[in-house]
């Protein structure tokens, strides 16, 4: 036999449960625009039934006791999150690579007449002019001007590329700092989450915050998330472990620090701890920066190769020739690469020393009108002097290569952005708030609440009959 006020209690429980459900709707609609928010659902549950042996039938029966909120769940696909982390890491790497490479390609200043390619042509053309007027001071000065133009172009391009490297290094240090900071926040959240799980709570909003932090961290480094659902980890329930390239960055409420020392030896990109322990990185912004750094070094090495071969080829031919003063064996350029190429002081201060003439056969002395060596110098422009390629062919191939690298990074970065937004859209489809849906549920809970209030009202009426309508009190009433 149930108690007299049992009916009121059912009504009260329904009122309370629907109130909670409406609060959850309020929370969801409030956070419709909050990044990383996962919608929450109030799960209704029939409360424990009341043993109610039938008085008339003698058969046992149970009487429902109303409703209660079993839990407030966070709706989210954890597996999708892991895919998003991986996609974030790829996007981070490609984005930072793309940013650096599009800066690098502008360093070359192509297509233009004043870039290295145009200056190479300019120098060789001036040698050709010299072959037609070897006795002319004006033409000799022009040769020196053109040579200076080429030297300047080499310096400008290699300097522009060199200036990117310190920015990359500073960026790596800053990104590593951000990653370490995120790791500490994740560790702190691990602790809070574990505590509330111990108290049998569901820390939905803390979980959202941790997921958002891991999401940020995943853009920086390629991480592996091991959660406490995996029994082998021995992690306290609710905590996650985060590994980066085999290095445990977060375990429980403890966070380690990633080093900012990096390496790209033999194409193996990664960070190096102070003990020399490598932390290989496959993706993430930091890996992208390290890769960009190594590609930039390659570009500068190519420029050095071009400069060195220009120096050697021109010098070899120039040494064979004779200046207006009859002297031979002088260099035209000095230096070993793009950074230190200069016009040799032998000719820089004395245009007459430019060896336009071929060496005369004894006993002849040099004739001022001899431009045969200048012809040979001009002809170098189409000679294969770098591994079967002429200087400009080598240069064109390298610039096109830089362009192709940048184009590929752009394309891949664009694609990866689409992949990430696709995955995020999938996650949003599951965990995002839909206002129409929330409002519909709101109407439902509002009506349920009103109905529960009606139950209380009716029960009150029924009790009124018993309490006030029966016996002496009723008579006096």
């Amino acid at each position: 036999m149930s108690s007299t006020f049992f009916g009121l209690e059912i009504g009260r429980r329904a009122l309370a449960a629907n109130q909670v459900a409406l609060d959850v709707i309020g929370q969801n609609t409030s956070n419709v625009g909050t990044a990383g928010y996962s919608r929450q659902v109030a799960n209704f549950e029939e409360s424990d039934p009341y043993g109610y042996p039938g008085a008339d039938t003698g058969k046992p029966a149970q009487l429902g006791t109303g409703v209660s909120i079993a839990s407030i769940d966070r709706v989210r696909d954890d597996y999708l999150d892991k895919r998003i982390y991986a996609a974030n890491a790829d996007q981070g790497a490609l984005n930072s690579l793309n940013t650096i490479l599009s800066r690098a390609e502008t360093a070359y200043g192509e297509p233009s007449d004043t870039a290295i390619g145009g200056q190479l042509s300019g120098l060789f053309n001036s040698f050709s002019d010299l072959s037609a007027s070897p006795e002319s001071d004006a033409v000799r000065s022009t040769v020196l001007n053109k040579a200076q133009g080429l030297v300047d172009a080499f310096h400008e391009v290699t300097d522009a590329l060199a200036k990117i490297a310190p920015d990359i290094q500073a960026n790596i240090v800053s990104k590593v700092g951000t990653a370490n900071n995120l790791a500490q926040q994740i560790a702190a959240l691990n602790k809070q989450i574990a505590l509330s799980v111990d108290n049998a709570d569901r820390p939905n909003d803390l979980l959202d915050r941790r997921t958002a932090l891991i999401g940020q961290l995943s853009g920086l480094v390629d991480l592996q998330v091991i959660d406490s659902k995996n029994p082998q980890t021995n992690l306290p329930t609710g905590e996650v472990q985060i590994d980066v390239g085999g290095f445990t960055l977060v375990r429980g409420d403890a966070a380690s620090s990633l080093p900012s020392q990096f390496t790209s030896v033999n194409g193996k990109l990664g960070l190096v701890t102070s003990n020399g322990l490598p932390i290989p990185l496959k993706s993430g912004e930091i890996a992208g920066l390290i890769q960009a750094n190594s590609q930039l070094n390659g570009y500068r090495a190519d420029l050095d190769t071009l400069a060195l071969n220009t120096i050697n080829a021109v010098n070899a031919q120039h040494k064979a020739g004779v200046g207006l003063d009859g002297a031979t064996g002088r260099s035209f350029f000095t230096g070993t690469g793009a950074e230190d190429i200069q016009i040799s002081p032998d000719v820089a201060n004395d245009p007459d020393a430019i060896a336009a003439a071929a060496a005369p056969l004894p006993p002849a002395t040099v004739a001022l009108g001899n431009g045969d060596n200048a012809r040979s110098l001009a002809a170098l422009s189409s000679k294969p002097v770098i591994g079967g390629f002429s200087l400009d062919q080598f240069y064109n191939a390298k610039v096109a290569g830089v362009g192709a690298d940048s184009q590929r990074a752009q394309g891949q970065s664009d694609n990866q952005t689409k992949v990430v937004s696709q995955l995020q859209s999938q996650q949003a489809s599951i965990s995002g708030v839909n206002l129409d849906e929330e409002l519909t549920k709101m109407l439902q809970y509002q009506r349920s609440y009103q109905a529960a209030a009606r139950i209380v009202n009716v029960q009150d009426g029924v009790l009124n009959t018993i309490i006030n309508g029966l016996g002496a009190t009723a008579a006096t009433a």
Partner: protein
Amino acid sequence: MTFRISSTQIVDGSLIGISAAYSRFTDAQEKINSGKQLNKPSDNPSGLAQSLDFTEQLSELGQFGKTLDQARGFIATSESSLDSVNSLLRQARTFAVQGASTSTNDTARQAIAGQIQDIINQLGSLGNASYGSRYVFGGQRTTTPPLVANGTGFNYTGGTTATGDADLNLDIGRGETLTTNVTGDRVFTPAIAALAKLRDDVANGQDLTVSQQDITAVDDQLNTVVGIRADLGSKINRIDSTKQRNELIKVNFTKLVSDIQDTDIPKAVIELQTSQTAYQAALQSTVRAFQTSLLDFLK
């Protein structure tokens, strides 16, 4: 199967759509404004390599064009001097025929000898012809006059094959070398010697020598000059046809570079219009997407 769509997705989707449409729109605009579709290497790496290659070949052809002009001017100067040499030698031959005639008296002979000396002097000055600041008949010794007066004759002081400084060579194409000059010792030295002998023989009344040897000697010189002029003429023809060929190639290469680097305006304008339409459509659909909500119907 219906997908659940959250409000965030509608916002994100609209943003992505609008920014993509806008970026295509500005790209099309940029191509039209700059007139270039190749503004940096990554815009078209293989096209860049090609256009750099064509540009360098154009520059090389331009340079060969300059060299061809130089060579042509140099050769034309030599040729026109030799044309005058030719006329002078013909004049001298006429004088020789007069000088060989027995009816010519001594006074007339001396007058003829004097005229032949004038021709020798003119040859001397023709031999010092110059193109720009370069003496054309001095071999590689272009800065000093090759014919130096010596009494009634001239000494040749220019470069010779024997001294190894005869030829002025120019490259008029890859590996195509052209010798542009004629050294004075091939024309002027023998012509002046022949005329000097003629002058002396006429002055001394050596009729037989004049008629039997000296006229033949002048004829030989005329033949030499004709031969050299024919050679120079064929070089000028070669220069002209090379220039013509280069111009055709240049027109082609310039078009190829332009095809790669310059914006195809009609195509770009259509792209601009298409992308503008797409941009407007994205904006409109965004407005529509946010127009309806259950909130509108709740009272």
